[in-house]
């Protein structure tokens, strides 16, 4: 009996261990015939009715051009679902996938979960340099492997309350950070131990006032050519943190600003502090203008590029860029048909312009950026998107972990918990390198 029991347990253990070895995503050959009648599934993350309608219109335009390819659209998908679906594969898994999280491109490319698009681009004769702006090319590839393409773009700029500017006697938006600091001070109205109006919320929890968005104003280099974290060696980061903390002090100090920040509504809700007049200026993406209108904002809103460091005044007009990415599932058996949809959505100028106008995003191709059909609202951001010095955060094998670590250090620094900035940045480099080593 004992030997029988041992045999049962042993067999079970071996079976468990063996089944614990999971399958992998074996990329199929793209040998499907895209000219035959075929159905493909497209997953995306948009969920608002207007956005879903814009996607539906885009897909309808595609199907009109490719009547043999039928697209099943599934919305409101996040990266967690994408990961699980692509891992499992099967008939219901998507063929075309878009993701808002550009930070995950490194993981998607490195793991082959998204198919390599280079053969498709070559076959279609698409030259990346003449099709997409350089920063958008950067955040859609990882270490030379192109597994996604940009599907619209987000550009960050300065929104300001024109009514508050007029009341304070300010005639034009600031162009350098020293001008910006002075304007922020002038617009700040203290009330008791708080504010009735704050010029600008510089704290890193102030929604889009993140360390990476600010750092883009200095054109930083996040990693050395060898892939090591570069925060301590690139003076851009110390300069950014020093400027940010200086502004925090000028506007009343960290604790006072944090207390005021706690009164803010949700970033993406109607009570956003810029909508309510709690802050007179904010850094935000191109979507803010539409949201402000929907929230019923009554004051005049001005939009301009975010001010730049005084020493780089000639680079005024640049900003941080990010955006949605789109790719083909590595497990898809219909990659040629899937490519037709990806190609249409990312490179067809009319499709890109219509989609950009519909969801208030910046278009992602060079031709679309020049289109006269773009709405006036997008114009200021078109300039930012096209500026030669606009930049983005690089892809990394562990997603946005390095950005989170930098942001975490920023929280400590703005709160006055970092006695030695250079040593703190060096320690942050060490942490980022440890996280990267774990991901490799």
């Amino acid at each position: 009996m004992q030997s029988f029991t041992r045999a049962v347990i042993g067999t079970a253990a071996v079976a468990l261990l063996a089944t614990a070895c999971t399958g992998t995503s074996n990329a199929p050959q793209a040998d499907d015939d895209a000219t035959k009648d075929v159905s493909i599934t497209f997953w995306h993350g948009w969920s608002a009715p207007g956005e879903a309608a814009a996607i539906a219109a885009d897909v309808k335009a595609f199907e009109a051009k490719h009547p043999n390819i039928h697209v099943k659209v599934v919305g409101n998908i996040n990266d967690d679902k994408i990961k699980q679906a692509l891992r499992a594969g099967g008939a219901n898994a998507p063929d075309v996938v878009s993701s808002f999280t550009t930070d995950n491109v490194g993981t998607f490319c490195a793991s082959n979960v998204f198919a390599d698009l280079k053969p498709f681009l070559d076959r279609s004769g698409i030259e990346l340099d003449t099709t997409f702006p350089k920063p958008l090319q950067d955040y859609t590839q990882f270490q030379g492997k192109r597994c996604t393409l940009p599907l619209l773009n987000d550009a960050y700029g300065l929104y300001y309350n024109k009514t508050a500017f007029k009341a304070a006697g300010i005639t034009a938006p600031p162009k350098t950070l020293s001008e910006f600091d002075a304007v922020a001070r002038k617009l700040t109205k203290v009330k008791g131990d708080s504010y009735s109006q704050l010029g600008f919320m510089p704290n890193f929890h102030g929604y889009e006032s993140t360390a990476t968005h600010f750092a883009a104003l200095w054109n930083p280099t996040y990693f050395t050519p060898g892939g090591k974290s570069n925060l301590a060696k690139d003076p851009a980061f110390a300069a950014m943190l020093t400027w940010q903390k200086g502004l925090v002090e000028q506007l009343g100090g960290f604790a006072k600003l944090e207390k005021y920040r706690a009164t803010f509504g949700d970033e993406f809700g109607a009570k956003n502090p810029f909508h309510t007049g709690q802050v007179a200026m904010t850094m935000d993406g191109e979507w803010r203008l539409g949201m402000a209108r929907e929230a019923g904002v009554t004051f005049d809103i001005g939009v301009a590029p975010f001010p730049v460091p005084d020493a780089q005044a000639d680079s005024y007009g640049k900003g941080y860029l990010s955006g949605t990415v789109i790719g083909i599932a590595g497990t898809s058996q219909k990659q040629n048909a899937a490519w037709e949809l990806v190609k249409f959505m990312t490179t067809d100028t009319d499709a890109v312009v219509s989609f950009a106008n519909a969801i208030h995003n910046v278009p992602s191709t060079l031709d679309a950026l020049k289109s006269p059909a773009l709405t006036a609202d997008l114009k200021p951001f078109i300039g930012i998107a096209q500026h030669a010095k606009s930049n983005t955060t690089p892809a990394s094998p562990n997603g946005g972990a390095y950005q989170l670590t930098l942001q975490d250090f920023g929280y400590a620094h703005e709160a006055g918990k970092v006695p030695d900035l250079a040593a703190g940045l060096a320690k942050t480099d060490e942490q980022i390198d440890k996280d990267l080593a774990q991901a490799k």
Partner: protein
Amino acid sequence: MTSLRQKHRTETLRNLAFLSPWLIGVSVFFLYPLVSTVYFSFMKYDGFTPPTWTGWKNWQYVFTDYPFFWPALRNTLWLVVVMVTLRVVFGLGIGLLITKVKTGAGFFRTAFYLPYLAPPVAATMAFAFLLNPGTGPVNSILGSIGLPQPGWFNDPAWSKPALTMLALWGIGDLMVIFMASLLDVPQEQYEAASLDGAGAWQRFRYVTLPNISPIVLFAVVTGVIQTMQYYTQPLVAGKVASGVIGGAGQQFEPGYPDKSTLTLPQLVYHLGFQRFDTGGASVIALVLFALAMVFTAFLMRSMSERSVA
């Protein structure tokens, strides 16, 4: 001899057949995940590419290099000690009070039980609204009577006490269990104790408590295990308080404010689904499993020793 062996084998197979539902359940829902988790804790696995052996690398990373692990462990232990204790004491106290109520007992039972039925996300969002340090009614009331106004979910020192308040608000589950056990204590024991001159505290200490001690043990053990799995409330509280609850592509900041609401289950998600590091996530899952086992064994043993004594 052969027929005896054959009979023995037949009996064994029959017994195994009767046990098979349990064996299949335990194998599929306990042993397989457990063995898989141990296996993956020694592998590099992103969910897509084949797992590769890394030895103790994941363990070393989690214990020495992962900056969120120790704050999350400290928070989890704080919640186990403070929240579980207060929940048991509060649940028992409410149960005692309601069993004594003569009129309106049904109303009070319902009133105390209803919050337990509230969905955790909705309840946490409501608490975050009530406790908003700038606009919430709680601080408005505190301020109007000259009391300090804490930062609640926005202050690292107050975020865990605020979560504890939320847990005490939803005490309905423990209240019902304690009420049932309290009503089950034989009345004659109270009468005998009273005749012997026992006061209220002595009746509670020497009659009530010994009778309900298995229920107390059950409440503590399940409370510890639930707290080890505490995920939704701290995550939602942190996200709502930080203001970043929407925004596609937004980075996930674990444990706002200042890692004070970070718990170990959040790290399982953070590593496993945000960094695609199944190995590191498995290590944390095993730490949770070991902690739950140690706590449970310790509690069971100390209770059994007490009952023997």
